[in-house]
């Protein structure tokens, strides 16, 4: 179990994140949702250990077994395959190829990373994340540049990965449709505060707070259902 208690992040006089209590169970997929500036990326960066929170306590976090994929995927200027093996301690090419196959990038294994499109770079970055077992996987809008076909393949690869490794997967998204078909749990954030957290279907279909209702109504989740 991974949990955080009284975690805050303050920039100057502005508090961008204020989490009283939040916990994540192994084998579950958590979708972080909320408008721009609601604290999704800040929360992911704190969980990844890249950002030190102003206050608070995090337990169960192991940096060595955590993977974080930032919003802007970056591909290094060498082969796609090496872009994946660089994340592996033993540079296992078989494991790297398997990860590339899972996200539909195996046919580009020998292509240079610097020539990839935004969507391809994003899938490559995801392959890097799933090429080895981790306890915690943090993905910041992992499919924002991916096409619909690729999105389905990536979501399947991530579900398979969670099933196989029993890790915690936390990802941020602006799409309630993606959250409903892919996440087991949803965390609704606004102004750095977790308004609601719970089973994906119940949060998305029956939001308890007015702010969450307004937020979801805006994206017409009920119509998509």
């Amino acid at each position: 179990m991974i949990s955080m208690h009284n975690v805050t992040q303050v920039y100057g006089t502005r508090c961008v994140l204020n989490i009283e209590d939040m916990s994540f169970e192994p084998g579950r997929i958590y979708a972080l949702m909320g408008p721009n500036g609601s604290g999704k990326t800040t929360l992911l960066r704190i969980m990844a250990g890249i950002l030190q929170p102003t206050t608070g306590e995090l337990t169960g976090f192991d940096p060595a077994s955590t993977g974080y994929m930032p919003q802007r995927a970056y591909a290094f200027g060498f082969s796609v395959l090496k872009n994946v093996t660089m994340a592996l301690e033993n540079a296992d090419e078989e494991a790297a190829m398997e990860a590339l196959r899972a996200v539909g990038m195996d046919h580009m294994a020998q292509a240079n990373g610097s020539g990839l499109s935004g969507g391809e770079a994003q899938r490559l970055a995801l392959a890097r994340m799933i090429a080895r077992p981790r306890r915690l996987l943090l993905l910041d809008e992992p499919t924002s540049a991916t096409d619909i076909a690729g999105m389905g393949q990536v979501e399947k690869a991530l579900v398979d990965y969670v099933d196989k490794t029993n890790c915690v997967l936390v990802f941020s998204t602006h799409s309630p449709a993606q959250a409903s078909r892919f996440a087991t749990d949803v965390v609704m954030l606004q102004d750095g505060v977790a308004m609601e957290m719970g089973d994906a279907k119940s949060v998305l279909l029956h939001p308890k707070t007015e702010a969450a209702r307004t937020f979801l109504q805006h994206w017409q989740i009920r119509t998509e259902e």
Partner: protein
Amino acid sequence: MSTLWQTFCSLFAAHSELRQIIGVTLRMACTSTLIGCTLGITLGILVGITEFRGKRAILRITSTLMSLPPVLVGVIVFFILSRSGPLGQFRLLYSVTAMVISQVMLITPAAMNLAATAAGERMGQVHETMAGIGLNRKKQIWYMLYECRKQLSVILFLGFGRAISEVGAAQLVGGNIQYKTRVMTTAIVLETNKGNFDLALALGIILLLIALVVNVIAGRLQKGNT
């Protein structure tokens, strides 16, 4: 073309000193580029990828030092290495080592500033990716160097260009001693003053050719990196 080649061949055959001057020039320029760029690029990458208090001040200082007059560096090194200076006991004045020291002082701040800027530009994109993968600090610096290789090769050749073409500091701390510290730039000044325009011009052309070769290599490296 063949006449020009014959002129050069006879010039080389007749002037053993010319070969010696070219040798000293290349030795001095290569050594100072290697030391200055290694120091400057390493410090620059570290400054570029690290956030700390005073970073902007350091970048401003190195930026100012980029336009440091070579003669001033020559005077400072002369003072430090002269018999009454703090390092006078090492008797380095009027040696190739003294010339290398002055060139390193000129190259290092420029290499540091340019490397810090190059690394800083890539920082946002690359750093979080590397940290997110879980790479250690050593690997992060290595991959950052790799990703900035194009800019770094430019820095290397800029440093070499500055070292090989510099005359003020080389003259002051090297003393332009025949068969010892005479380099192409100081020799050009001397031969011009003596009225040996053919030799001065030949030296100038050789200097230009070296610069051309270096530029071609730099261009090919950059092309290969893209």
